[in-house]
């Protein structure tokens, strides 16, 4: 679901920038709102991709040292990493909440979009990240004996 939102937002960003170029080069007018909307779409792409990538376990990470470890500590660090992801998402949400106490009153310059909506993709993305991370951490903790049996 988050992936589909990200795909639509990516297409929207591309189309908006194309529209901007056409407006500038052909019609010699500026679309001041298109740039901000394109950046908003870009933000949506980024923050929707974050939970989708975690769900697929495709975040960029250094797994060289993990692969060198024997299975038991590797499993321990895998669980630690999932828990740390939960901490990260929670920290970001708390930070966003504190920030919104002050910033929600203002709105963006070109569109006049309220800041609450402008920061919404980040909040939704991080909320989804929190849910995915909790799911992964719980799965990693409960499937402990089976993993050990599977491990070579």
């Amino acid at each position: 679901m988050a992936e589909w939102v990200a795909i639509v937002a990516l297409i929207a960003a591309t189309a908006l920038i194309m529209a901007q170029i056409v407006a500038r080069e052909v019609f010699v007018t500026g679309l001041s709102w298109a740039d901000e909307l394109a950046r908003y779409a870009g933000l949506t792409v980024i923050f929707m991709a974050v939970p989708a990538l975690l769900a697929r376990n495709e975040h960029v990470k250094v797994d060289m040292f993990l692969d060198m470890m024997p299975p038991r500590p590797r499993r321990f660090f895998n669980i630690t990493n999932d828990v740390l992801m939960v901490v990260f998402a929670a920290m970001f949400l708390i930070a966003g909440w504190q920030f919104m106490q002050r910033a929600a009153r203002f709105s963006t310059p070109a569109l006049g979009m309220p800041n609450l909506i402008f920061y919404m993709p980040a909040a939704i993305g991080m909320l989804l990240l929190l849910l995915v991370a909790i799911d992964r951490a719980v799965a990693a903790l409960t499937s402990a004996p089976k993993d050990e049996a599977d491990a070579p």
Partner: protein
Amino acid sequence: MMSLVATCLFMVLMCLGLPIAASLGLAAGAVIWWYDLPLAVIAQRTVNSLDSTPLLAVPMFIFAASIFNTAGITQHLFDFIRMIVGRIRGGLGYVTILTHLIFSGISGAALADIGALGSIQIRMMRQQGYKDEFSAGICMAASTSLAFRSFILAWAMLRTCSLVTTPLKSRPGAFEPESSFAAFLRK
């Protein structure tokens, strides 16, 4: 002291296999929390630094590269370079680096280079019996060093002189931007 703690924490977390984005965020968050700075900074700075128009160009470079790929421009480019230096021993390595050189003049983005040329080049090198590690290494070195060259390219455009004629004598896999930069300076 503050940045030292943050950097060390980031390195440790990254080496333990936490995703790089999260280890950056957690290291920064820990330091911010430890030094009693306002936590709201995290949300504000993250969103505001991602909210940038130049960043939107990155997916579009990759898009352009895949258009080039589908239209067959990269294949023509590759064949052209191969015609020139293909007969040298280890020629495919030279071909890879030179194609990246020309392509970086078109796109100017390292990731787009790999996206466009990497798939063709690694496939061809594998057919000719190159090791996978070697061909991946050449692609990485050639394209990321060309991110550096795009800066030189901007300079060359200011000086209105051609960069493609720069002699490139480096071995494949060697740190080559410096050598061609030196050659460029000699001109």
